[in-house]
């Protein structure tokens, strides 16, 4: 048997009829089609029945039982929350003012203590420079001790061999990129599972 809902008024049409916001064409169809008129009538009756259902009330001591299980927020916490509530709309402005104040204070302090800043700066630079130099030397020594360092140096000694090696590496890199692109491409045809 054909479902009159799918053949005639849709669920959205029935919603619109209930809300009295239906398109005139929908209203005309509902007037003209006996099946849809009956369906809309039954729908409206069901909804009126639902809207007319009574509300139930819990027993009289319900609120007291609830309150027995509730920890009413104490005054200091409430005061802190109140302050946060008041500040909430101005939070962005407060953050901006705080940042400007911090930067201004640091500039003033820097101007007043220039000698101290210079001494601290040069000492720190010397220390950092020493660490970097030691790190470079240690890295160089470690690389030179590797077994592949000798052959690599021989290859790099000849510009022709170096060119061939670099071209081979570039081609291998390109081939890997192409393979990855093919692997990650979406299938172009329709997917059989798309419509369930």
């Amino acid at each position, binding site marked *: 048997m054909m479902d009159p809902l799918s053949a005639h008024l849709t669920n959205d049409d*029935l919603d619109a009829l209930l809300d009295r916001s239906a398109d005139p064409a929908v209203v005309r169809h509902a007037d003209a089609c006996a099946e849809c008129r009956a369906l809309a009538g039954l729908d409206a009756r069901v909804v009126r029945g639902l809207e007319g259902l009574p509300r139930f009330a819990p027993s009289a001591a319900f609120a007291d039982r609830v309150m027995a299980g509730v920890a009413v927020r104490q005054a200091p916490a409430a005061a802190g929350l109140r302050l946060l509530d008041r500040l909430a709309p101005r939070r962005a402005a407060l953050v901006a003012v705080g940042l400007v104040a911090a930067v201004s204070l640091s500039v003033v302090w820097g101007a007043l203590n220039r000698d101290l800043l210079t001494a601290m700066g040069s000492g720190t630079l010397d220390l950092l420079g020493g660490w970097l130099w030691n790190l470079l030397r240690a890295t160089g020594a470690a690389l030179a001790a590797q077994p592949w360092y000798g052959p690599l140096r021989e290859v790099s000694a000849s510009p022709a061999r170096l060119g061939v090696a670099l071209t081979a590496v570039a081609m291998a890199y390109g081939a890997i990129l192409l393979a990855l692109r093919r692997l990650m491409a979406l299938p172009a045809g329709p997917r059989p599972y798309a419509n369930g």
Partner: protein
Amino acid sequence: MLRTATDQEVVTEARRGREAAYRELVRRYEAPVFSLIFRMVRDRELAEDLAQETFIKVLNAIGSYKPEFKFSSWVFKIANNTAIDHLRRRELDTLSIEGSPHAATPEAVEATTLQLGSPDESPLDRVVALELGGEIERAIAGLRPEYRSCIMLRHVEGRAYEEISEILGLPLGTVKTYIHRARHELRTTLQHLREE
């Protein structure tokens, strides 16, 4: 003053440590939260326990509530999660309007039976409302828990699709689908009302 304040204002007062604000939040949401949970679990005593658990979670975490979200959405989210977690633990999906299947004594059956209708109605209105309300309550009880949450939030609590999506943490399309399917199931179950 608290009675006329918005949810956000009451939450602000609660965060300031005013116990009266906590009680006001319970007063505002105890009936909708309890009704939602009651219709999910169909057991008054259990629904009270789960609603109590919901409010204790909400009020103890009031400091972490983000005011950019609707407070009601946050409360319903916690209530729904609490009910769904319980249903998953107990595998309590479809239940009877005539009382909890876990009720062992006649008194327990009586206590867990849904009380339908309002005391302000005339006897005839009351009979009709009880009949329709009872039919709908039975039909809701037969829905999947996910559909039940969605349909109640939409048509009993009057929440927008977008808000339900936020409350349940589901995509908007899924929420619409669940609501349409739930209404379809309710229409099918209540088909015999068509001629009335």
